């Protein structure tokens, strides 16, 4: 139970096959379709949360249009990217924890 991507063969909209796209999320491979956002890929793979708030409450997509910032991820070492706004590119390395910043001496 949970979110799911509609298989193209059952889709009344009949999307063109844009080909598969694979990213890694915390080291695990997640595959979706070219043209999807990072949030779309994660939800399509059945994940509803990938981050915790200041006090440890789980967060994922809420607004879907870039205003709530609940969906933040780190992409290719760039922190605080809104997963619902950023389209995935092949090989993106997504981390759901912010990168550890070493304190400068």
């Amino acid at each position, binding site marked *: *139970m*949970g*979110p*799911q*991507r*509609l298989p*193209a063969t*059952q*889709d*009344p*909209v*009949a*999307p*063109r096959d*844009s*080909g598969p796209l694979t990213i890694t999320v915390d080291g695990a491979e997640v595959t979706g*379709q*070219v*043209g*999807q*956002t990072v*949030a*779309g890929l994660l*939800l*399509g793979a059945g994940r*509803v*949360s990938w981050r915790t*708030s*200041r*006090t440890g*409450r*789980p*967060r*994922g*997509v*809420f*607004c*879907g*249009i*870039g*205003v*709530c*910032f*609940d969906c*933040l991820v780190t992409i290719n070492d*760039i922190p*605080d*990217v*809104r997963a*619902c*706004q*950023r*389209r995935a590119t092949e090989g993106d390395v997504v981390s759901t924890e912010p990168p550890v910043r070493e304190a400068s001496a």
Partner: protein
Amino acid sequence: MISGVRVFEAAGGVLVVGGGPAGMAAAAAALRHGARVTLLEAGYDLGGQYWRHLADERRGAHEHRLHHGWSTFQRLHEEITGHPRCDVVLGGSVWAIDRHDDAPPVVHVMVGAPDGTDREPRSYTPDRLILATGGQERTLPFPGWDLPGVFTAGAAQALAKGERVAVGQRVLVAGAGPFLLPVVSSLIRTGATVVGVAEASGRRRLARGWLTRPWELASTSSKAGELGGYLKDLVRHRVPYWTGRTVVAAHGTDRVHSVTLADLHPDWTRVEGSERVVEVDAVCVSHGFVPRTELAVAAGCQLDEQGFVITAAGQQTSVPNVYSAGELTGIGGADLALAEGEVAGTTAAGGVPRPSLIGQRKNLQNFAIRLESAHGIRPGWQTWPDPQTMLCRCEDVTVGELRDIAAKTQSRGLRSLKLTTRAGLGVCQGRTCGRNVEDLLSESLLPAGRTSYRPIATPVRLGELAATITPEREDPLP
């Protein structure tokens, strides 16, 4: 002088911010009236929230099945993107506007992937500026509304239309307004089962709002047709439509597994004893919309008491040469956004709008007034949250904390309450909780929309910002 920024002298030009129905209609109308036009859109595509569609690479053969007025989108898209006097900038996030008393405002943009690090900074100095940045949903807080699996109805819509992802398999849709209906239709077409639609407004109020003076609705018959289509989907798929009922709690630990529904009195307080629990794996909630006014505020545009941008007959704002259209000026749906956009584009380019267009806008504005009277938020919602209910999702500030601190400090100042409670200080900068905070501070001295004053409209990285202010000469510091 700022170097490192390419300054785009859009002299004689009209600059439109926002590529939704309002911005697209504005750009097309300005082009028809001879102007040079620049259209800035933060997203990957034109269409805004209404015509959110699959990426070009995945474009559906039957995309129109998810959209109303898809042919209007295609016509506007062709008119704008193929035009020699039009520059469409996608991935262009306007993050600030500088005001100048006797010169046009300067519009600062970052162009590139959303939240990227190496975007191209640009600044525009247009003769005329049209703001069409749209709106966002307002969600009222209830226990568990921050659990994963609770989405705004718009998020469900965006994921269905733009990704072909259904947010769940057993989905409840709840809130207020006709917008709940297209969400149901999209969910069904994306393979979800909708267990019911809970409309908070009661039967009487709906009847009063929608059935009085029905002749006024005849002139907005395209709207009636659109709603009729959604209702057919409800019937065909046997989706129950409950009125005077809403979701008052979501249950689960890491994700939602059920919700409590309750009947509501006309003022939206709960009818005690009416609660029942329904199993779901997703909830879509929308209690209405609020405008995204950061840029309008930065430009100095006056807002009305509900927080919308005030406009004159030609869509002029209170600031000379700045116009506004669409959800920013009031909530009335895509048709009103299109009409207002066309008026704004026409007047900004020095033309005079056709009387029939002005008439159409008037009818659709009446539709917007009915919308508010039938579905507008009622104060009884303030009894849904318990003291532990999250109010500010970013900083995990509860309703109880805000109330306690406001009572203890007797403070009604937004700044001090923000600093002491942390509500609105998180990453979204109060975009999600702002209006709810305003409401809860009931004897508030705050004018509505006060929480949307944000000098930076969209996030910019400090590195990007620093790169835009490279000094011209490398003088050593004294």
